[in-house]
């Protein structure tokens, strides 16, 4: 909950209209981003992303499982988000559940592609160990530690960073003589395989306040939004997912405009994230 006076609301609106926001940024400027990888040693991969005062942690755990009957050649990925009450007292008890589910579904839509797994940022067939028998189940958990707007973009960035930090153990499978035998699995604890994360998209949320839209809104600015469009864009400039939030309707031409701006912003964001991730990896190995 953000309590704002009429004067403060006018200040935010006027600032956005004049392209000079309350914290001195322009409409399409991001707050500083910092990334730390390997923060949860028990997980296969993890990262903590801070964008301004927003602070999120993503962890990735891999477990051996069985592929689904319909897609014997693909592994499974599930995304969960938890809003910790440390971020805001309103998340106490079951208070954060609605937002958590909204964020988890939006992330799933942006990163995992359609039901068939086509167009996913992570290649599901790379998770297969033995077709139809054994695959890796990836559990992606996001935790919101501190919330100051733009949670979806931060979680998207954290998952991207965590995936690049993830090592999946190499598995040797000993298939039995007959095809019905339970295969013997030997998980190596020395050899790890890295993911190809070049296809993982970034998420850019454009928040519409008044007649203009801004990126990387703070929670004060988000409280004034009429609607928001989240676009996930990959390295090649392809749009991988879209979510519109907020009650107010948008003109189709405005949506097109927002998408093209989002695509433009995503190029810069990918560059920033790449350099931050490699810097974090370098400092983690030191």
């Amino acid at each position, binding site marked *: 909950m953000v309590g704002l006076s009429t004067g403060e609301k006018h200040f935010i609106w006027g600032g956005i209209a004049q392209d000079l926001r309350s914290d001195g940024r322009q409409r399409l400027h991001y707050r500083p981003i910092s990334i730390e990888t390997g923060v949860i040693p028990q997980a296969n991969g993890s990262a903590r992303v801070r964008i301004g005062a927003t*602070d999120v942690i993503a962890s990735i755990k891999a477990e051996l499982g069985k592929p689904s009957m319909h897609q014997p050649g693909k592994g499974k990925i599930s995304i969960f988000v938890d809003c910790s009450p440390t*971020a805001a007292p309103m998340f106490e008890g079951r208070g954060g559940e609605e937002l958590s589910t909204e964020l988890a579904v939006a992330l799933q839509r942006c990163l995992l592609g359609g039901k068939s797994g086509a167009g996913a940022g992570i290649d599901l067939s790379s998770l297969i160990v033995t077709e139809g028998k054994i695959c890796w189940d990836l559990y992606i958990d996001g935790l919101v530690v501190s919330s100051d707007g733009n949670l979806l973009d931060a979680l998207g960035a954290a998952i991207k960073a965590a995936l690049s930090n993830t090592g999946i153990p190499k598995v040797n499978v000993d298939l039995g003589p007959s095809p019905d035998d339970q295969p013997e699995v030997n998980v190596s604890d020395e050899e790890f395989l890295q993911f190809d994360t070049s296809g993982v998209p970034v998420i850019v949320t454009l928040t519409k306040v008044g007649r203009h839209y801004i990126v990387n809104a703070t929670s004060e600015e988000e409280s004034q939004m009429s609607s928001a469009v989240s676009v996930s864009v990959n390295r090649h400039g392809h749009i991988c997912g879209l979510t519109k939030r907020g009650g107010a309707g948008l003109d189709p031409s405005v949506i097109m405009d927002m998408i093209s701006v989002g695509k433009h912003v995503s190029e810069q964001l990918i560059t920033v994230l790449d350099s931050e991730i490699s810097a974090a990896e370098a400092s983690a190995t030191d």
Partner: protein
Amino acid sequence: MEFVSPEGLRLDGRRPMEMRQIRAEIGAVSSADGSAVFEMGNTKVIAAVYGPREVQNRGQQLNDQALVRCEYSMANFSVGDRARRPKGDRRSIEISLVIRQTMEACILTHLMPRSQIDIFVQVLQADGGTRSACINAATLALADAGIPMRDLVTSCSAGYLNSTPLLDLNYVEDSAGGPDVTVGILPKLDKVTLLQMDAKLPKETFEDVMELAIQGCKAVAQYIREVSPQNFIFLASVSQLSVI
């Protein structure tokens, strides 16, 4: 299973009376009034304090003192095998209660009538001793929020395995089935505010184990006083004066 080797070393290479490395960081959540991260070895928790503020649920308002509330939650990735627990299971409700009672004992609640203080603790990594780590983090967060307290409560656990008292058990030692004594003390006033033990122990041994845990609490208190900025110590001394 052997928990103390003949050379007197534990599974993680510590001596029986040695604590894990502790680390504290104040001000981790910017939107909270006070917050802190506390690490004991691989156990890592974040505490955030909101308040004193208006009571949200009027029915709970107390006219002579502040209402203290606490919620303990564990991240999905905090334990080794990923288990998705429902919120508010019995264990977390019990720990919330323990933390609330311990903190209530040191907050000068009578100075803030008709107000509410919320303490939220979030476990990022669990490797034994989460209870103690949560209390230490909550103390630092309360101090960061500038809430008047009698003293900085600190907590530590100790156990007894292979006929040896062990300080600050990790997860493996904790699940070995031996006794686990968790103690919380007010180090300056030299009072015990929290004491819990599971399993059984002869009385003489219990005294030794508890004494060891108290020594651990004092070591934590020493560390907290070293890291906390000068203004905490100032606040602590002012609140002490008001008690006397």
